C-alpha cells in the first residue's frame, strides 16, 4: 500500500498512490493509515485522485481511519473519481466526510476551518 504524506500549514495531506482500495488491500491500508495519522493536526485531507475503485472493504478502511484520528481532527476526502464518489454517496457516508472534487477545493474547505 503506497501512501505519501505532506504537511501544508495546519493541514496534513495524505495521497493514496494506488488505483484500488479493495478487499485485497483494505487491511494494509488501515495499518498504514494508523501510523500516519497518529499525530495528525486538526485538518487531514485524504487525496483519492488516483483511486479508480473502492469496494465495501475499502470503504470500511476509510471509515476506520476517521476513528483513528486524534480527537478534534477532521478528515476531508479530495479528488473523488466517479466510482469512488458513488460508493460514498450510496452508503450515505457523504454525511460524515466532507467530499471535495479537487484538492484545491478541499484545502479551502471545512478541514481548514
Amino acid at each position, binding site marked *: 500500500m503506497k501512501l505519501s504524506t505532506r504537511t501544508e500549514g495546519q493541514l496534513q495531506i495524505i495521497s493514496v498512490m494506488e488505483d484500488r482500495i479493495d*478487499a*485485497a488491500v483494505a487491511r494494509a491500508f488501515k495499518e498504514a493509515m494508523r501510523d500516519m495519522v497518529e499525530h495528525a493536526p486538526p485538518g487531514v485531507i485524504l487525496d483519492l485522485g488516483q483511486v479508480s*475503485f473502492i*469496494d*465495501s472493504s475499502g470503504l*470500511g478502511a476509510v*471509515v476506520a481511519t476517521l476513528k483513528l484520528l486524534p480527537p478534534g481532527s477532521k478528515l476531508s476526502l479530495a479528488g473523488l473519481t466517479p466510482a469512488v464518489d*458513488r460508493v460514498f454517496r450510496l452508503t450515505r457516508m457523504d454525511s*460524515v466526510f466532507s467530499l471535495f472534487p479537487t484538492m484545491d477545493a478541499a484545502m479551502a474547505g471545512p478541514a481548514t476551518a
Partner: protein
Amino acid sequence: MSALYRHSDAVKPASAPYGFEVTLEASPDAVCAALGHIRAELARHRLSKENLEVIELVMAETLNNVVEHAYAGAPQTGLIGVRGTYSGEDLRLRITDIGKPMPGFTLPAGKPFKRHEIADVLPEGGFGWGLIRLLSCDLAYSRMGDMNLLTLRIPLAAG
C-alpha cells in the same frame, strides 16, 4: 495472475448478447484479477464507464462475500464459479461456490443506509449487501446439495 482464474466464452459475438464464464480461486487477489479480466472483456462490448463501474462493484461485493464468509476457515482455497450474460439492457450473474451455506439459508437483508453525524458510532463493515441490493434486482439464493447458488440482475443505464 493467470493461474488464479480460468475463462471461457459461452458465446462470442462482438456485441450483446454476450456471455462469459470464469472460475476463480476464493482469495482477494484472485477476485481482483478476475474483476480486471471481466471488466476488460465487457469494455470490448461498448458498455459505458458508469455501467462497467457498477458491474465491477456488485461483482466485487458478491465475490468477496463468498471469500470472506462461505469459505471462511476452509482448510484449503475454494473455487467460485461466475457466469454472466449481458443482454444490452442488463447483466445477469450466476455465482456458485461449495462453501458454507448462507446463515439461515437466506440472503442477508443488508441494512438500509442512514445518515450519520457522529464518527464514533459509524460502522466499519456490513456495507456489502446494502450496496448489492441498491444496485441489482431479482436477487435469489438457493442451496443445492453442497452448492450455494446466487443469481441476480444488474439493470444498466442507457448509453
